[in-house]
């Protein structure tokens, strides 16, 4: 049984006095694709923000390759090889498409991803590379956001609700590109509202409900009923 590359134990997260996560336990094996589902407000994005360092947590609540990283800053965690595609894309409006991608590569980490590789993955971006990033359609912006996260050649990529606000046909196209992304030995944590998509692309699934894990299992094995109960906390 290989060691988990990401180990979350007893993770609490607070926004001021409000507690969003209660003692979360989660593990991710190297090269695994794990999805996290749950209703709005269940704590999925809080989890992403905690792992990526945007929220400060207890040091040993999050371990990366055995090292305690819970209290590190976001830029330090990015340097360790953990990359986030944030909810809502959050591209840099002042930067062009290409500049958004380039700043993703700011850290200069070695790996298979480069501007050329991103353009091969999403050819439409090459066409639009000089345009201001916010001038693109929602689906194309999502491609930029994913490309930007890949440019840092991460070992773990986290995708937070990439289908939010996109047309079904666009979502389909992006998810079809996903195997090409994670196939390179990348570990991935995928937060999704679309349960079917989440299960189709991951090997294991966690369901969050009001800041706690309500279900954990192999994506292929969990039943509709299990998910319903876990999702809504019945």
């Amino acid at each position, binding site marked *: 049984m290989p060691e988990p590359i990401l180990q979350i134990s007893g993770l609490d997260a607070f926004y001021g006095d409000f507690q969003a996560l209660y003692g979360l336990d989660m593990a991710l094996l190297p090269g695994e694709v794990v999805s996290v589902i749950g209703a709005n407000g269940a704590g999925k994005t809080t989890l992403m923000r905690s792992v*990526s*360092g*945007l929220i400060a947590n207890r040091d040993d609540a999050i371990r990366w390759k055995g090292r305690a990283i819970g209290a590190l*800053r*976001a*830029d330090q965690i*990015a*340097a360790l090889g953990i*990359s*986030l595609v*944030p909810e809502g894309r*959050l591209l*840099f*409006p*002042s*930067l062009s498409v290409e*500049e958004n991608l*380039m*700043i*993703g590569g*700011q*850290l200069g980490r070695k790996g298979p991803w480069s501007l050329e590789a991103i353009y091969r993955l999403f050819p439409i971006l090459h066409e639009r590379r000089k345009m201001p990033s916010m001038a693109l359609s929602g689906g194309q912006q999502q491609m930029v956001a994913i490309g*930007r996260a890949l440019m*840092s050649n991460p070992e773990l990529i986290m995708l937070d609700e990439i289908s939010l606000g996109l047309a079904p046909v666009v979502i389909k196209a992006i998810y079809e590109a996903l195997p090409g992304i994670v196939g390179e030995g990348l570990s991935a944590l995928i937060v999704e509202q679309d349960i079917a998509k989440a299960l189709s692309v991951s090997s294991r699934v966690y369901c969050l409900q009001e800041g706690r894990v309500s279900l954990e299992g192999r994506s292929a094995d969990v039943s509709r009923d299990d998910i319903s109960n876990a999702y809504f906390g019945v």
Partner: protein
Amino acid sequence: MDWINTIVQGTLLGGLYAMFAAGLSLIFGVMRLVNIAHGDLIVLAAYFALTASIMLGLNPLVASVLVVPLMALLGYGLQRLVLNRTMGEDLLPPLLVTFGLSVIIQNALLIGYTADPQKLQAGLIEQQSVTVGGISIGLFPLLVFVVAILVIAILQWLFYRTALGRAFRATSDRQDVAQLMGLNRAHIFGLAMALSLAVTGLAGVFLGIRTSFDPAVGGSRLIYGFEAVIIGGLGNLWGTLAGGVILGVAQTVGAKFHPGLQVLAGHIVFLVILALRPRGLFPRID
């Protein structure tokens, strides 16, 4: 002919004002911070140059080789140790802290150098001039103007063609997401302030050579810089140059009517532009 001469002199003066303003504009662009102590830092740089030229026997222009890096270091330290703690949603802390800094710098200079007016002596260059089409153009004001253009061109290049500039713009757009790219926000802000004070340092040396200065003149330099930024439009460095020129011309034209009206004329032109075009002439950001 006389009027053309006035406008030319005003334009050259505008170069100096653009230098005052460039540092201010940069900081606001990257961090949305307005540094009330900015004018006093210009004066501080002038005093550094004074001390360097007296102690080391250097021409102040040569001394700027020491003053500029010193100011940059000061800027980095100031940002990381003090001003980074004021960054946030509330506008009061940075304003009040930089105001406090302004008072401290002015009075520290008063203690160190007394209130006596000082002037930096740059030698022959201050007296030389070229004559173009019947108008006598002082070499030093021309030098300042050319340097102002160079500085702004370099800053533009830095912002739009380098990784550091990308980092500045990204951090200014979305601080949190910029951190996800591996950018240390505290460090980026420190670098921005260092850059701003480097430009300010050079502006201070130029100020000291051009006119006499004392610890109390910082406030008006801040105001001229600020007026240039507002006239030109927020977020546009070339606009800031235009703003400086407009201010300079307004002042020299005003002085032509009555020497006591120089500064007031500048203020009035500023207020008129504020009334008619509140976002400035060439705004880029809100």
